[in-house]
C-alpha cells in the first residue's frame, strides 16, 4: 500500500527544498508549454476562420485541441516527471483549455447562463448591494458569491463584468485543476496518479465549455474540491496540523453556500457521507472524524435556504421532479427515449465520426472502471474518500443512462461534473501506464495518452453541439468599420435609448438585453412569453399576462434561432457558412399592430412594440 508520507514528501519537494529548485530544471514544461500554446493558436485560427464565415473544418480545432492535451497526458503518464513538473503541467492544462474557451468568445459572454450572471454582477456594481433580483433566473441573484467577487474587481478597476468575470473564472479554473491534483495526490500518495486523475477529469463533458462559463457553479465546484482537499489533509493524527485545516474548510464551505445551491447540497452530502464512512473504516484510528464540518455545512446550507433563498425549493423541485418522471416514463416505455447526439435546441445531429469518438470515450471509461475500482479498493480503501469515489464512479454511468430520458438528460449531464471527480480518481488508479512489454517499453504510456485524448474529445463532443464548438460571428468588420450582430446591435440600441425599461423577448434576445441592454427582460415560460412571441394570434390572455409582468415593450424576433440560447446571439449567415434562418410567420409580429401598439424599432428580424404607447 502506498504511504501518504511518500506523496507528502513528493509534494513538499515542490517548494520546501530550495536547493532542489536551484539545481533542478523545468523538466519538459517549456517544451510542452510551447506545444500547448501552438495548439491554442491552431484552435484560435479555427475560431477566426469560423467567425469570418469561411466554414473551416472542425479537424483544425480537433488538431489544436489534441496538440494541447496529448503531450501533457503523455508526460503525466511518465514515471520520470517530478511532482512539481506534474503540478505545473496540470495548471498548464487547465489554463490552456480555459484559453480555448476565451478564444471562442472573445467579445462577449455567449454561453447560456453567462449573460444572466453578468446582469447580476452589473446590478451589484451599480447599486452597491446584493440581491437585486433577476427576471430570467430569480434564484441566481440569491447566491451572489460569484457576482460579489466579480463586482469587487469591477468596482476596484472599472472593468466590465465581462473583463472582471474572465479573470475570476480563470482563477477558479486554476483552483479546480490544482486542487484536484492535491486531492488525488493526498489520497493516492502518488503525484503520478494525481496528474492522471486531473487528465481524466478533463474528459468530463462539462469541462471545456459549461464548467468554464461565467456561472455560479464554475466558482462553487472548485471551492468544493478545495474543501475536500482540506478535509483529506486534516485526516492526520497530529492535532495541531488537523486544526490548521479548519480555516480553509470553514471559509470554503461558507463560500460554497453563498455561491451555488446544488454545490452546497453536494458538499453537505459528501461531508455527511464522509463522516459515516470514517466511522466504518477508521473506527480504531485516531484521525479526526469530519462530522463537525458536515454539521456546519448542513447548518450553513439550511440557514441560507431558509433565510435568504427559500425560492430555491420551487426552482429545483420541478426540474428534479420532471427528470424523475421522465426517467420513469422512458423506462416504462410510456415515452420514447431521447435521441442521442441530437441537439434539443437547434435539432442539429452530431456527425457520425464524432459520434464514434464520443462512444469510444464512454467505452474507454467503462473498460477502465473495473481495473480502477479493483486497484483503488485494494490500495487506498482506508482513505475515507475512496469508497465515496468508487460509488461516484459507478453512479456516473447511471447518469449516462439519464441521457435517454428527454427531460432528465440535463440533470444527468450536470451531475456528471460532480461524479466525474470520483471516476477520474478511480480510472487514474488503473495504472495502464505501467504496461510496458519488453519490445515496446512506452506502449502503456502511449496507449494511456491516446485513451485520455479520446476521452477528452468525447467529453467535448457530448458536452456541446458541434456547430457551436467554434466561434460564431458576433462582431465583424465591413468596409473597415465594426458592426455587431442584429440582436447585439438591438441590445446596444436599448442601452442608449431605453435603459432600465421592461421587455418581453425571446430567450437569446432577453439575455443580451439584460447584459448589453441594461434593461429588465423577461423570457421563456415567465408569463408564457415563449408562446406569446410565437403564435400568430393575440387572444386577450396574452396582453393580460404581459401586463401582469408590467412589461412595456414586446420584442418580436422572426428568427426561430432567437429561442435557442446557444446560437441565437449571432449574425444570420448564408451558405457555405451555415443554413439561412428558419422564420416564424409574420403574423407573430404583426398581431401587435392590430391592437395599435406603436412599432418603435425595426431591424428586419427584430421588431419592438410599445404596449403603453397605444392611443
Amino acid at each position, binding site marked *: 500500500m502506498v504511504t501518504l508520507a511518500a506523496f507528502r514528501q513528493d509534494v513538499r519537494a515542490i517548494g520546501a527544498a530550495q536547493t532542489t529548485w536551484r539545481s533542478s530544471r523545468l523538466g519538459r514544461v517549456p517544451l510542452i508549454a510551447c506545444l500547448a500554446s501552438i495548439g491554442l493558436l491552431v484552435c484560435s485560427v479555427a475560431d477566426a476562420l469560423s467567425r*469570418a464565415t469561411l466554414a473551416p473544418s472542425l479537424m483544425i480545432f480537433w488538431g489544436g485541441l489534441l496538440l494541447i492535451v496529448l503531450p501533457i497526458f503523455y508526460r503525466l503518464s511518465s514515471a520520470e516527471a517530478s511532482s512539481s513538473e506534474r503540478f505545473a503541467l496540470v495548471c498548464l492544462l487547465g489554463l490552456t483549455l480555459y484559453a480555448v474557451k476565451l478564444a471562442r468568445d472573445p467579445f462577449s459572454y455567449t454561453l447560456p447562463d453567462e449573460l444572466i450572471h453578468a446582469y447580476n454582477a452589473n446590478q451589484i456594481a451599480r447599486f452597491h448591494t446584493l440581491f437585486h433580483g433577476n427576471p430570467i433566473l430569480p434564484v441566481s441573484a440569491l447566491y451572489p458569491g460569484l457576482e460579489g467577487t466579480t463586482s469587487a474587481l469591477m468596482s476596484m478597476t472599472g472593468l466590465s463584468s465581462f473583463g472582471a468575470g474572465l479573470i475570476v473564472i480563470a482563477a477558479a479554473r486554476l483552483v479546480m485543476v490544482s486542487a484536484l491534483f492535491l486531492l488525488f495526490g493526498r489520497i493516492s500518495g502518488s503525484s503520478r496518479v494525481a496528474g492522471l486523475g486531473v487528465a481524466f477529469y478533463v474528459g468530463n463533458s462539462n469541462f471545456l465549455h459549461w464548467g468554464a462559463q461565467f456561472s455560479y457553479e464554475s466558482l462553487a465546484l472548485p471551492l468544493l474540491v478545495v474543501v475536500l482537499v482540506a478535509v483529506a489533509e486534516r485526516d492526520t493524527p497530529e492535532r495541531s496540523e488537523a486544526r490548521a485545516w479548519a480555516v480553509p474548510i470553514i471559509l470554503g464551505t461558507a463560500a460554497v453556500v453563498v455561491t451555488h445551491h446544488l454545490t452546497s447540497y453536494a458538499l453537505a452530502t459528501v461531508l455527511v457521507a464522509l463522516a459515516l464512512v470514517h466511522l466504518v473504516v477508521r473506527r480504531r484510528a485516531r484521525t479526526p472524524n469530519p462530522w463537525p464540518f458536515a454539521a456546519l455545512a448542513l447548518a450553513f446550507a439550511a440557514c441560507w435556504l431558509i433565510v435568504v433563498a427559500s425560492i430555491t425549493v420551487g426552482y429545483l423541485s420541478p426540474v428534479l421532479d420532471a427528470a424523475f418522471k421522465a426517467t420513469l416514463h422512458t423506462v416504462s416505455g410510456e415515452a420514447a427515449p431521447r435521441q442521442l447526439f441530437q441537439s434539443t435546441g437547434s435539432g442539429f445531429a452530431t456527425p457520425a465520426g464524432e459520434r464514434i469518438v464520443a462512444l469510444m470515450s464512454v467505452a474507454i471509461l467503462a473498460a477502465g472502471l473495473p481495473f480502477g475500482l479493483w486497484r483503488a479498493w485494494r490500495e487506498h480503501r482506508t482513505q475515507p474518500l475512496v469508497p465515496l469515489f468508487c460509488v461516484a464512479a459507478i453512479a456516473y454511468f447511471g447518469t449516462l443512462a439519464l441521457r435517454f430520458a428527454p427531460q432528465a438528460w440535463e440533470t444527468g449531464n450536470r451531475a456528471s461534473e460532480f461524479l466525474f471527480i470520483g471516476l477520474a480518481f478511480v480510472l487514474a488508479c488503473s495504472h495502464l501506464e505501467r504496461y510496458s512489454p519488453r519490445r515496446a517499453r512506452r506502449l502503456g504510456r502511449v496507449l494511456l495518452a491516446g485513451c485520455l485524448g479520446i476521452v477528452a474529445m468525447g467529453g467535448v463532443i457530448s458536452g456541446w453541439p458541434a456547430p457551436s464548438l467554434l466561434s460564431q460571428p458576433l462582431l465583424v468588420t465591413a468596409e473597415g468599420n465594426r458592426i455587431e450582430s442584429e440582436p447585439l446591435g438591438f441590445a446596444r440600441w436599448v442601452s442608449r435609448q431605453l435603459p432600465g425599461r421592461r421587455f418581453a423577448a425571446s430567450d437569446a434576445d432577453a439575455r443580451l438585453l439584460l447584459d448589453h441592454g441594461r434593461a429588465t427582460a423577461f423570457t421563456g415560460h415567465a408569463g408564457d412569453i415563449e408562446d406569446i412571441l410565437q403564435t400568430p394570434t393575440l387572444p386577450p390572455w396574452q396582453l393580460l399576462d404581459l401586463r401582469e409582468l408590467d412589461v412595456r415593450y414586446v420584442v418580436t424576433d422572426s428568427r426561430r434561432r432567437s429561442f435557442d440560447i446557444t446560437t441565437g446571439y449571432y449574425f444570420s449567415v448564408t451558405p457555405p457558412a451555415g443554413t439561412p434562418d428558419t422564420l416564424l410567420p409574420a403574423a407573430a409580429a404583426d398581431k401587435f399592430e392590430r391592437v395599435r401598439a406603436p412599432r418603435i424599432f425595426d431591424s428586419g428580424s427584430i421588431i419592438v412594440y410599445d404596449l403603453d404607447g397605444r392611443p
Partner: protein
Amino acid sequence: MSLRHHDLVGAAIAAVLCAAVVLFVPVTAIRAVFATPLCLILPGYAVTVASFAGRKLSRAHLLTLSVAMSLATLATGAVALNFLPEGLRSGWWVGLIMLIVLGGCGVAALRRSPSAESRPRDRLPRVRRVDAALLLGACAAVAGTFTLSYTPLPARHVVGYTELWMLPAGTAGTPAVRVGVVSAELHPLAYRLELRLGSRRAIMSLRFALKPGQAYEKLVPVASPATGASTEITALLYRNDRATAVYRRVTGWLPPVPREPR
C-alpha cells in the same frame, strides 16, 4: 511583524502598493494589473499563512490555497459588506482586503515561533537557453492567439441589416419625434427616409447614405392636425437600390390636439 518574516513583509507591502494604485490611479488597465493580485492572491495568502503559521506547506498547496481562499474571502466578504450602509464600494473592498492581509500577516508573524525560520527565500529554477527559447515561443503563440481572437474580421457570408427607430420627443404642446437609422450592412447604402402623418402624404423626405457602422439621427417637430384624436405617424425607410419597396417601417402615435373653439 519582524523583518525576518520577509514573506509576510513582502505580502503586506505588496498589498499597500496595490491598494494605493487601485485607489489613486484612474487608468483601468493599470488598476486591473494591481487589483488582480490584491483581490485574488493576497487575501488568501494571508489567511493561509495565518492558519498554517510555523508549519511547512508545499508551494503547490500555498498557491492553491492562496487563490482559493482569496475567492472564498471575496465571496463571503461581499455578503458581509452588504450589511454596511455604504454597501459594496471600491473603498470598502480595499479596506476589507487590507484588513485581512495585514491582519493575517500579523497573526502569522505572532504565531510563528521566534526561532523558526520563515519560508526560505524562493529562488527561480535555473532556466536553460533552450527552455527560455521554448517559453518565449509559447508566449509568442499565446500573444498571437489573443491578437487573432480579439481582432474583428470581415465576414462575407453574414447577413447585414439596417435599424430604423422612432421615439416620441418634445412636449405636449410641441410634439416631435426622434428618428434614427443605423447601418450594419456590409456595404455603403443610400437611403430615403419618409415620414407620413395619418393617411396624408409624406410630410418629410430625406435622402442620405451610410457606411457600415454609421448612424443617422434627426429630431423632427410635428404639427399634429387638430382632430381631437391621436394621429398615427409612420416612418418608412427605402433603399435607393430598391426604391419602391419599403425596407423598414416604424410607427408612433401623436397625442390628440384639442380643436380650437370657433
